[in-house]
């Protein structure tokens, strides 16, 4: 049972940082719990790979400590940290069979043959590789090779953590579904700490118990997929999670009412004393604003997008662009539609941070 603690970790690649902006990874403390699956999610350059590399030992942080259980490993190299890694591109031995590839990390640990055979068979069964065990790895498709890489990452049962760096980026969409659900099934069966870096929100949300959303070197929110969707604590999370992301509108907020571009609508909570002099925004996801045939706020339709299982309207409320959902039963749209904002799922942000109101 190993948990991993990052205690006041920060990193600047370039020698001596003078201000906070010189850090590629800003001050971060977190305990990664044994048995959970985490995703590190953010755009390129957000610091997610730096964070992973600090855990794996490829990068020694400028500040802070890395603990595996209670042991300080901050300065230990990767091979002394007892972790397994899976990378974006397959790392396997072409001349070996699939079984030998899977057994390799175990042979290195000098485990007995019966133990190795049992474990290889178990992992192969989980990943549907049983029929391929005696094939040479050479000549397999890129997808199949990446599956073997995943297997090699998962084959050791004694690791502190398995780290994945964008492992499914090069995989075709249909197979991605299969591998992702396999990975999740394996995670449930094996009771391992897994940390998974990706820029793909669907991958992060569907794989992880908890997602760390990163932007500009900072972890802006750590939460379950539902928390990130229903209650983004930062405007960046609202924007980055969801496709399209959350609508944000400059607003005046008084009590439980919001004023946007001359229109007024209700909020789910009461906001008494918002700090003055800071930008106030109201945020609501496209899923919670819908076109209605009843009464609502009048909005101009700019464009309609048919996404197959849902349709979206890109509208203007006054001078505010909004993306809203068109319910299935609504057929043709006029140039002006009425929209309904779900107050229970509308949040208030001051200087990009969510403000908790009080119950009405």
């Amino acid at each position, binding site marked *: 049972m190993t948990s991993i603690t990052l205690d006041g970790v920060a990193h600047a690649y370039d020698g001596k940082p003078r201000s906070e902006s010189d850090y590629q990874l800003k001050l971060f403390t977190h305990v990664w719990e044994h048995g959970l699956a985490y995703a590190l999610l953010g*755009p*390129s*350059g957000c610091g997610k790979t730096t964070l992973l590399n600090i855990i794996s030992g490829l990068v020694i942080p400028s500040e802070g400590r890395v603990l595996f259980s209670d042991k300080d490993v901050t300065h230990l190299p990767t091979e002394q940290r007892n972790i397994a890694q899976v990378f974006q591109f397959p790392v396997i031995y072409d001349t070996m069979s699939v079984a030998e590839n899977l057994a390799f990390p175990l042979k290195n640990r000098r485990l007995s043959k019966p133990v190795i055979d049992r474990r290889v068979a178990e992992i192969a069964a989980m990943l549907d590789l049983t029929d391929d065990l005696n094939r040479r790895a050479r000549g397999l498709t890129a997808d199949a090779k990446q599956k073997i890489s995943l297997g090699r990452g998962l084959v050791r049962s004694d690791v502190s953590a398995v780290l994945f760096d964008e492992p499914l980026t090069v995989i*075709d*969409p*249909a197979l991605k*579904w*299969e591998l*992702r*659900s396999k990975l*999740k*099934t394996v995670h*449930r069966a094996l009771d391992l700490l897994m940390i998974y870096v990706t*820029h*793909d*929100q*669907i991958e992060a*949300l*569907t*794989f992880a118990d908890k997602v760390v959303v990163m932007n500009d070197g900072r972890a802006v929110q750590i939460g379950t*997929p*539902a928390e*990130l*969707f*229903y209650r983004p604590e930062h405007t960046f999370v609202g*924007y*980055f*999670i*969801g*496709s*399209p*992301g959350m609508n944000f509108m400059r607003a005046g907020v008084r009590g439980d009412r919001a004023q946007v571009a001359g229109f007024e609508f209700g909020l789910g909570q009461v906001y008494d004393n918002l700090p003055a002099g800071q930008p106030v925004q109201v945020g609501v*996801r496209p*899923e919670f604003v819908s076109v209605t045939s009843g009464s609502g706020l009048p909005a101009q339709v700019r464009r309609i*997008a*048919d*996404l*197959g*299982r849902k349709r979206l309207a890109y509208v203007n409320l006054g001078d505010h662009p909004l993306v809203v959902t068109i319910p299935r039963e609504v057929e043709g749209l006029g140039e002006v539609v009425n929209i309904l904002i779900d107050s229970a799922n509308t949040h208030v942000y001051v200087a990009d941070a969510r403000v908790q109101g009080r119950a009405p």
Partner: protein
Amino acid sequence: MTFALDHIGFDVGGDRVIDDVCLTFAPASLNVLLGPTLAGKTTIMRLMAGLDQPSTGRLLLDGEDVTGTPIRKRSVAMVYQQFINYPSFTVYENIASPLRGAGVAKAEIDKQVREAARVLRLENLLQRLPAQLSGGQQQRTAIARALVKRAGLVLLDEPLANLDYKLREELREELPRIFSRTGAILMYATTEPSEALLLGGSTITLSAGRVTQFGPTSKVYRNPVHIDAARVFSDPPLNELPVAKQDGTIKDRSGRPLGRIDGLSDRPDGGYRVAFRADAASIGPAATGELSFYGKVVITEISGSESFIHVDVGVGTWVCLVSGVHEWAPGRTAVVNIDPRQVFVFDASGRRVQANVLEGAEP
């Protein structure tokens, strides 16, 4: 201009990798080429660009045969998945390069480069070298170069595949707009159904070198005429159920009789394939209709607003999409209830058998 592929075939080492492709593109149209890796998307684009010569068939530009015309004499621009720029040229010179080659006057070059840079938000980066740019900026430079070429045919081969998710979302919105102003025929290759839907226009579904359908994007999505078109255009993957019609009764593999399936009643006995997308299925503790199937939950994936529930129903694993957050534990018994109005039926050759299919069939 119009551009057409007329019975185009292409052989590699004796294998037919592109088979009898016939497509006609309208002027200023947006066309999505949708298919998995190795379906032949890049090969078709290379044939259209003139980089490879077809083994059979003709390429027609405004009705005129241009099959043998060298690429330099064709009005074609291509953008690849891997950003390709001249490493020793600045962004400015990279964008200007096709104009310099064409002998355009200096002042005109400057005007066009700055205009393209403005549209692609590269104005502040014009003096940088490609190595000093992010991936998104490098790809925008490659796209700007394609834009100044004012080509009649613009081929974008998975242009956003290597970019970050959110950047893709933004560029995907902008690209069709940018090129539609030039009147070019735009061809956009992708592996992702959602990208095709977001782009709109028309979609060509491609499987193993063959075109299975070509039509308005939402029509192809809602009304696939071939099982391969439905498979290529489904994410999560298409759920399938092989059935047999025997003495007028429809049964699944285990021999269980199924209820009425629209479109099968007037069909001869034989093997068929019933298919439906993840959102056509709901999950319940009890059966609610004639198309209800018992299974065991394999895994639940929650994407925030939606839950994807994978259910093993014996003939394979289906993915069902349920709105909201639902944590169905693995191993639990679940019933998949399929909406009969959202079921596709295909015959043994893969052709759709339902009557309503015909309206979506024409290319």
